[in-house]
């Protein structure tokens, strides 16, 4: 497995020196994230999320399946994600890299295990028919912080998706085409957002939010926090890297609380804008 | 506030198998425990440490191996005994891989043949290097190396061959460079290899010893021990009669049954002693050999736990 070449020494020294003065190469403040751009496709649940040059496409589709015998009252959600060499030359096909493992596991934790979607509301007939939602994450380009972008794309796609209305009469199940009856949104418990902070070998350097690929490559540890606007943490993930004082961890979490509220406002606004253009088409 | 579930204290067995820990619920007992540590260290004389323990201030002392400096303190980074030479504080790990030093005698195994060099597995953190220029070639010490020698390196040493050599120098990355430029060194045959933790091999005046039972021993400082049939002094060729066939030969001499048994007995004694973490010297091995013969125990029985324990006890008892 060839390792991507590490950044050259001048690049590294320059980045460390400027971060020491709280300056970032793209002009952001240390705790400023790139404004996400959300583009919705013609289909419901099709979202293209871009943060700077990092781009992730997420799409949701649903179908009817028989539920698992252990959980007859719950729908199924599966998340498919793969980092292809298309996103960045650092990745290669075949064996899952460490980055890919982290991404897949984090998506799973943030979007599925934190009970974002009410799975019981996806049940149509107990033990017979439930909705199976398939969330596919395509990483189109990686310019740093792929994880946050993928999580955002995934959660927005789930919020954007609407499933066809279903009528149950005894044993008969009728699925209404979206053109007949307006499809209904998923019942969501909460909307978690993920924030990644990068730490650097020099402990006096402040942590940066939403690292670019160069920053990520030169960092000495990442701290990912997923939380919703209601100040509920869903995932805290700091796997190794530079040791941090407990107070620093708490400080970063409080920063993330503020960011989650901001991001929530942006997402809600964009979803509303999009929906207002769509209402016309449906009838 | 934070407590353990309490349970009975276990018997303190000898080798640290299943060392259970009873933790006091009362924090007052906690303090007693610390005092116990100090007492134990005081009685035994050698000061022990584990990683992360502060040893001293970095103003008054210099840091040696097994320590690092943080926040103006010298801190231990390995578990072992603290050693002090004047102002230099170092920690010697109780157990670790072989740390080579120039002049050490090592026994190794050829791992790879590369252009102009052999890679030798000698139990270190990297394979050692034996340069073609650091070996004696057939035809006399003064002989020049030719290109043809480079092409037939495998005729001297090939993968899997065992050899005894001396550490000559180190490369910048810490890999050791060996040489076999002495008649004492070279390919090994007529015997058997035993591997023990390197800490058990003490530095001796000579690491080539022969036991009166007709067995030669090479105690490599890397913990590799070569036990072989005794070679009579007169059988060894002098400087002039450097015989290529003999030095790089792959053929074993005829070894009679008694010698074979003796070799096997010595190797099993070494294994038994190593399992009990007994340092190995020729004196100890000789004594152990006599004990084994005296007890008239079968060679293979030496590996049994109770026989090995009795052997160790007999050695400890006499001193």
């Amino acid at each position: 497995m060839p390792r991507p070449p590490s950044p050259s020494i001048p690049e590294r020294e320059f980045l460390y020196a400027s971060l020491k003065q709280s300056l970032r190469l793209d002009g952001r403040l240390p705790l400023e994230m790139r404004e996400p751009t959300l583009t919705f496709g013609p289909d419901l649940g099709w979202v293209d999320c871009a943060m700077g040059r990092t781009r992730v496409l997420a799409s949701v589709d649903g179908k009817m399946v028989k539920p698992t015998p252990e959980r007859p009252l719950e729908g199924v959600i599966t998340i498919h994600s793969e980092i292809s060499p298309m996103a960045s030359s650092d990745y290669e096909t075949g064996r899952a890299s460490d980055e890919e493992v982290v991404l897949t596991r984090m998506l799973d934790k943030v979007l599925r295990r934190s009970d974002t979607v009410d799975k019981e509301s996806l049940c149509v007939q107990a033990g017979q028919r439930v909705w199976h939602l398939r969330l596919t994450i395509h990483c189109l380009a990686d310019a740093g912080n792929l994880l946050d972008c993928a999580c955002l794309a995934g959660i927005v796609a789930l919020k954007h998706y609407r499933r066809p209305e279903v009528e149950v009469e005894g044993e008969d199940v009728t699925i209404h085409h979206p053109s007949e009856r307006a499809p209904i949104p998923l019942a969501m418990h909460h909307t978690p957002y993920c924030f990644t902070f990068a730490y650097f070998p020099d402990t006096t350097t402040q942590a940066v939010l939403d690292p670019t690929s160069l920053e990520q490559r030169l960092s000495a540890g990442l701290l990912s926090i997923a939380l919703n606007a209601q100040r509920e943490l869903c995932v805290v993930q700091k796997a190794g890297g530079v040791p941090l004082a407990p107070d620093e961890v708490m400080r970063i979490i409080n920063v993330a609380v503020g960011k989650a509220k901001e991001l929530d406002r942006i997402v809600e606004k964009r979803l509303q804008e999009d929906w207002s253009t769509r209402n016309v088409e449906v009838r | 506030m934070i407590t353990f579930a309490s349970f009975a204290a276990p018997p303190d067995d000898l080798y640290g198998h299943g060392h259970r820990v009873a933790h006091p619920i009362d924090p007052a007992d906690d303090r007693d425990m610390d005092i116990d540590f100090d007492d134990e260290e005081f009685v035994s004389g050698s000061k022990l440490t584990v990683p992360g323990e502060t040893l001293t201030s970095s103003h008054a002392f210099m840091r040696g191996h097994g320590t690092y400096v943080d926040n103006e303190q010298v801190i231990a980074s390995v578990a072992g005994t603290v050693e002090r030479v004047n102002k230099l504080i170092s920690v010697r790990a109780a157990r670790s891989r072989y740390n080579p030093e120039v002049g050490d005698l090592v026994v190794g195994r050829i791992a790879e043949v590369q252009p102009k060099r052999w890679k030798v597995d000698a139990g270190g953190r990297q394979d050692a290097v034996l340069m073609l220029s650091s070996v004696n070639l057939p035809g006399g010490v003064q002989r020049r190396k030719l290109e043809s020698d480079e092409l037939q390196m495998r005729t001297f040493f090939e993968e899997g061959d065992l050899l005894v050599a001396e550490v000559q120098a180190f490369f910048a990355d810490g890999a050791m460079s060996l040489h076999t430029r002495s008649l004492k060194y070279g390919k090994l045959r007529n015997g058997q290899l035993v591997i023990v933790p390197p800490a058990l091999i003490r530095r001796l005046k000579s690491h080539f010893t022969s036991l009166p039972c007709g067995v030669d021993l090479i105690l490599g400082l890397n913990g590799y021990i070569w036990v072989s049939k005794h070679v009579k002094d007169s059988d060894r060729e002098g400087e002039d009669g450097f015989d290529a066939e003999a030095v790089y030969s792959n053929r074993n001499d005829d070894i009679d049954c008694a010698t074979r048994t003796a070799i096997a007995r010595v190797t099993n004694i070494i294994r038994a002693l190593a399992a009990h973490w007994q340092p190995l010297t020729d004196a100890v091995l000789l004594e152990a050999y006599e004990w084994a013969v005296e007890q008239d125990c079968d060679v293979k029985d030496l590996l049994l736990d109770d026989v090995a324990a009795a052997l160790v006890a007999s050695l400890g008892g006499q001193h």
Partner: protein
Amino acid sequence: MGSRVEILNDDGYRSDGRRQFELRDITMDLSPRGTADGSAMITHGLTQVMVSVFGPREAKMRAQTLHDRAVLNVEVNIAPFSTGERRKRNRGDKRILELAASIKSTFEPVVQTALYPRSQIDIYVHVLQQDGGLLQASINAATLALVGAGIPLLDLVCAVTGGVHSTSPMLDLTTLEENDIPHLTVAVMPKTGNVTLVTMETRLHVDRFGDIFKLTCDAAQVIHQEMKRAAYARTRRLVDAMDVDSKSILLTGDNVDKDTAMNELE
């Protein structure tokens, strides 16, 4: 079944009879196993993990060697019989890979890898029994195994799990508790009190998180005492065994004669 069991009853006892802040009993065994340079077996209650450390040794994969430091390689193997229902996990299981990646990145800044350029240190984790706190046990066992192998560490790494049941925090959870309540694992370097690893994967309010986070950091210090004790005991045994014999060498002077016999060959 999870919700039927009372996690914490009115008298303040947990399902296995422990108090809120009570840790399960710990056993640590550092005796050598096989050809490993260092090995440790640790149990936290019913969770049992064995770790073997090999190295630093010549790197197997040439392409992966680093010219300025050693490479850490962590492999995790979960025994199929380690859980109630027997299940074989294959090596590619994402959860196992994540566990291995977490352990690896926990130790990368702690092990002084710069001392061993172009080498490789292998850490093999075998999970024999699991009843909660898998990551905790793996990290603690790996620390002890590294100590046993004489590999230089900046500090011991002590990990502990904690959870919150409605508003009451508790420590060292069993599987039963882990399935039911939000929980986190913290790995601390006790000397500085700094945290090298935090993972939490269930919904928890920020304020609650603060409580349990501080508590687990304190609990790690208690674990540290135990680990230190085990490491001292092991080192003491090895050093004592060596000491007994160093006296015997001084007493016997006859080995010198045999040495000279060999020296004459030169």
